[in-house]
C-alpha cells in the first residue's frame, strides 16, 4: 500500500505475518522523529544540558534505524539467538533506562555534595562578616531565615 493510499484508507491495514503494517511503520517513525527533535531542541535552547541529553540522543539515534527498517530487529534478534524479537527491544530499553536513572542519581549526589560545600562556605563567610561587624549592628533577616521558611513550606 502506497503512502497516498494509506492517507485515505479508512479500512484495516493488516500487518504481514511477523512484520509491521505500513500504518504502524509510519506511526513509529513519526514518534521517533518527534523524540529526536524534542531532545535536540532541548539542548539547542539550553533547557537540557548536553551531558544529560547525551544518553537520550544515543537512545533516539538507535531507534531511527529500527523505525526505518522494521525488519532489522528480527535480523538482530536471530543473530543474538533470541526467538521473540520484542524481547530484544524491551531488554535493551530496560538497560538504557537503567543507565539513565543511575546517571541521574550519580549527578544528584554530586550536586548535593557541591551544594553542601557551598552552604559551609556561606556559613563560614557569614561568621567572618558577623565577626567584623560592630556588635550593635542591626542584623536584618538574613538568607538563613529565608531558607528556613522555604524549608518549612516544603515539608
Amino acid at each position, binding site marked *: 500500500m502506497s503512502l497516498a493510499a494509506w492517507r485515505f484508507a479508512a479500512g484495516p491495514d493488516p500487518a504481514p505475518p511477523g512484520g509491521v503494517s505500513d500504518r504502524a511503520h509510519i506511526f513509529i517513525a513519526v514518534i521517533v522523529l518527534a523524540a529526536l527533535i524534542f531532545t535536540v531542541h532541548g539542548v539547542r535552547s539550553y533547557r537540557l544540558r548536553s551531558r544529560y541529553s547525551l544518553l537520550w540522543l544515543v537512545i533516539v539515534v538507535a531507534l531511527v534505524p529500527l523505525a526505518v527498517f522494521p525488519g532489522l530487529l528480527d535480523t538482530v534478534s536471530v543473530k543474538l539467538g533470541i526467538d521473540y524479537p520484542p524481547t530484544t527491544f524491551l531488554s535493551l530499553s530496560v538497560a538504557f533506562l537503567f543507565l539513565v536513572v543511575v546517571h541521574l542519581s550519580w549527578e544528584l549526589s554530586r550536586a548535593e*555534595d557541591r551544594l553542601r560545600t557551598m552552604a*559551609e562556605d556561606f*556559613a*563560614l*563567610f557569614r*561568621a*567572618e562578616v*558577623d565577626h567584623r561587624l560592630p556588635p550593635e549592628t542591626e542584623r536584618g533577616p538574613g538568607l*538563613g531565615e529565608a531558607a528556613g521558611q522555604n524549608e518549612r513550606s516544603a515539608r
Partner: protein
Amino acid sequence: MNSYPRASAVHAGDRATRGDRALVIIPAYNEAESLPLVLVGLKASDVDLDILVVDDGSTDETAAIARAAGAVVLRLPFNTGIGGALRAGFRYAVERGYERAVQFDADGQHDPGAVTQLLAALDEADLVVGSRFSKEAAYTVGATRAQAMLVLRVLIRILTGRRFSDPSSGFRAFSRPVLVHFSKKYSSEYMESVEALVSAVYAGYRVKELPVRMFPREKGQPSTVRLRLAYHYIRVVVTIVTHAHRRPRATVAVRS
C-alpha cells in the same frame, strides 16, 4: 579539597594565640531549649574554651541564643544533617588554626566537666572518644537502641579489629591532624559518628576511648519510633560498610 586562603589569612594574626586554645564544636538543630544550659556549663569549665555553635538550618532561636551567649555561630542555610554540621565545624577549626577541638552535643547529655579530661587525653591520642557505657559511666538506653548499638559494636570490631564500648558517642576530642583529615573527608552521610571512627582508624590515627559520665537526654525528642530507628541504623550500617576501605597509613605527624 581546596584550601581557603582568604578566609584564613584574615585571622592569621590570631593563629599564635588560637593554637593552644581549644574549640568546642556544638552541632545544633532546633536546640534553643537545651542550648542555654549547655553553654553556661561550658563557660564554667576550668579551661579556657572557644565555643562554636553550628546552627544546622534551625527554624527556632538557636543561633540568636548562641550568639547572645558569646559563642561564634556558623549558620548553615539549610539542614545538612549532623555530618554536614560537623564538617563545617571542622573546617572552621582548621581555618582558624586550632590545635585541638571537642565535639559536644547541644541536647545536654554531655558533661562539660569532662571536656578537660578529653582534651588531656589528646596527649597520647589523635582522636579521643568519650564512652558512656564503661563501668564508671552508668548509662542506659532503650532496648531497640541497645540492640542496634550491639550490632554496631560487633561491626566495628570486625572492620577495625578493635573494641569500642560506645562507638556512636558524639563526645569526642580531635587533634589538628584529625581535624584536617575530617575537614576534607567527613561525609554528610555520617549520621552516628560511627563511620568517622572507622575512617579515623583506617587512616592510621591513634584512637582512644575514655570513660566519661553522661546525662540522660533531657530535652529534645529522643528518637523512639522503632521503624525510624531501624531505618536509621540500617543506613548507618550501609554507610559504614560502603565507606570502609582501608587506605595506606596516613602521614599523621604533620603538626603545623
